[in-house]
């Protein structure tokens, strides 16, 4: 099969063309000197010169808020209205760590009860992933067994051959069908630029032993270490909302006298009212209890339930944290403690 090459100009044309139709298109857009995955229309300028987007691809498939129920209220009672089926999506701009996170979230949203909002949308999404050409001190995907060129979760993987062009590789049948459907645009003539440098798996250091983290968390639930780790944490929700694998949500109603809507909105275990009982009792009163839940859920409880760590090492939570919390540093500290048998 001949090499399929596409350059930025053709990719923009492709995405704008699709955005015109029924399909929703998400791509990186420049806002205030940072790239964000956002829903684009036919003329939104797409931004390519970025290292990693601030928010994650989760925003396309698990939106900040979405209606799960609509109802009309009148004298006879309440009439429920169906939510229109999920629209197909083309998701461009994520890295392999983003694509892998979509697979992790599927496990929870498919656990016994199928949350069709996430699963239907996920099945109608074409994920076009950009392989990584650079990394920074907060990236640790290799520590969790992922790779800057990983294919997990992507439909099409774009490997950069030069600053302006990529070599496209279909990972799934859906990806292959998409490439065939748009072959007209996937025939750029750029040649691989030997001077263009990219990175390999070995470049990103493995920070900690991922299998040592869970046992330590299980034994050291009451350890003083949690208080030291989280002393500077503000307990806001910035890290959870940019995290590709944080899936917690709240359900609220918004209604007038005669009609209303029930929505599923993002929520975070770091927020105090997340676990506040009606009797005002709060099992997770202190900051450290809440941040401990965030780490323990990803690295211990999720592993017990679904045999996989709910984190792909993208490092977004460390980059966005205003207080300087760094998850790679915390996990390295935990795995070192585990090795030394420390408490």
């Amino acid at each position: 099969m001949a090499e399929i090459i596409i350059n930025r100009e053709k990719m923009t044309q492709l995405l704008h063309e699709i955005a015109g139709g029924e399909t929703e298109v998400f791509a990186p857009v420049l806002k205030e000197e940072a790239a964000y995955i956002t829903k684009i229309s036919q003329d939104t300028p797409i931004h390519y010169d970025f290292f990693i987007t601030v928010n994650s691809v989760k925003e396309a498939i698990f939106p900040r808020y979405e209606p799960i129920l609509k109802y009309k209220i009148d004298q006879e009672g309440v009439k429920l209205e169906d939510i229109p089926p999920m629209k197909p999506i083309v998701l461009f701009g994520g890295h392999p760590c983003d694509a892998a996170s979509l697979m992790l979230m599927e496990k929870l949203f498919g656990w016994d009860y199928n949350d069709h909002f996430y699963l239907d949308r996920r099945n109608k999404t074409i994920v076009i992933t950009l392989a990584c050409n650079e990394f920074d001190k907060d990236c640790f995907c290799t520590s969790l067994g992922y790779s800057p060129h990983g294919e997990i979760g992507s439909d099409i993987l774009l490997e950069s051959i030069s600053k302006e062009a990529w070599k496209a590789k279909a990972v799934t049948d859906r990806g292959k069908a998409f490439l065939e459907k748009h072959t007209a645009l996937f025939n750029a003539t750029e040649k691989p630029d030997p001077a263009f440098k990219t990175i390999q798996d070995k470049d990103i250091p493995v920070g900690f032993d991922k299998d040592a983290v869970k046992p330590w968390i299980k034994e050291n639930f009451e350890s003083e270490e949690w208080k030291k780790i989280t002393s500077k944490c503000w307990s806001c929700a910035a890290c959870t909302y940019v995290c590709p694998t944080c899936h917690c949500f709240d359900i609220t109603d918004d209604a007038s006298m005669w009609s209303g809507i029930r929505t599923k909105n993002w929520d975070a275990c770091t927020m105090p009212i997340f676990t506040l009982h009606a009797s005002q009792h709060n099992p997770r009163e202190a900051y450290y209890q809440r941040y401990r839940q965030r780490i323990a859920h990803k690295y211990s409880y999720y592993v017990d339930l679904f045999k996989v760590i709910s984190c792909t090492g993208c490092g977004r939570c460390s980059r966005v944290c205003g207080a300087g919390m760094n998850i790679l540093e915390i996990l390295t500290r935990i795995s070192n403690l585990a090795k030394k048998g420390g408490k």
Partner: protein
Amino acid sequence: MSENIYKPYLMKVAEVRDETPDIKTLKLEFRDPAEAEKFSFKAGQFGLYSAFGAGESTFCIASSPTRKGYIECTFRVAGRVTSQLRDVNPGDTIGFRGPYGNTFPVEEKFTGKSITFVAGGIALPPVRCVIWNVLDMRNKFKDINIVYGAKTYQDLVYKDELQQWQDAKDINLIKTLDPGGDKAEYGCNNWDGKMGFVPTVLKESGINGKGGIAVLCGPPIMIKLSLPVLVELGFAKENIYTTLENKMKCGLGKCGRCNVGSFYVCKHGPVLTAADLETMPDEF
């Protein structure tokens, strides 16, 4: 179009009873008879009740699975949703989603044994569901003890049913009020039950726990104090069942609220044994 797991049944409010000034019981029937047919649940399961416009709240199903065609729920008025549910009248429509969570193993483990029910205050509804379930098949069980206490006479829930259980010959009912709970201002005249907190009354009850099943439900402080008493009376830890209380929003294991350790109260609970309780982190 795949099925929307958050879509509630539409329920008609058949009956509204005031248990205490701030606790109400609603009797709900399915608006759609087809749904009524398909619907079944087991003792201990819960559901999410929608007050359209305010939101959803989690209560247990207080009526027994042996009584078909309706479900009951009992709740205290504490917030936005319960305030709107308090004002419903017979004939109104509210929503119900469920049944969720695991169940009391009534058929599998309770049959042929003697059962002691211990409940405090507003925690009687989840226990009452099991009591009526057991009483509707009374011959399958040995003797039945019910130990129920509340702060004051006014706070006693299901007063009429307490009377029925007291008059029944084959039930040993021990009701108690916290000290000072029997004053006239609480509408109580010549209180015939005991006085004192549930754990202390339970200790003096002299119930023999050997080989018996205990169902314990109440505020966390009462559970902490009653568990050792039950063990003292001879109940084995695996035979002490309790239902857990945690903030819930989806009831389906998705929203992450009720997660304590690797345990999701809405999926692996709310019913669990005292033995399981010890393996979990103390985050309740």
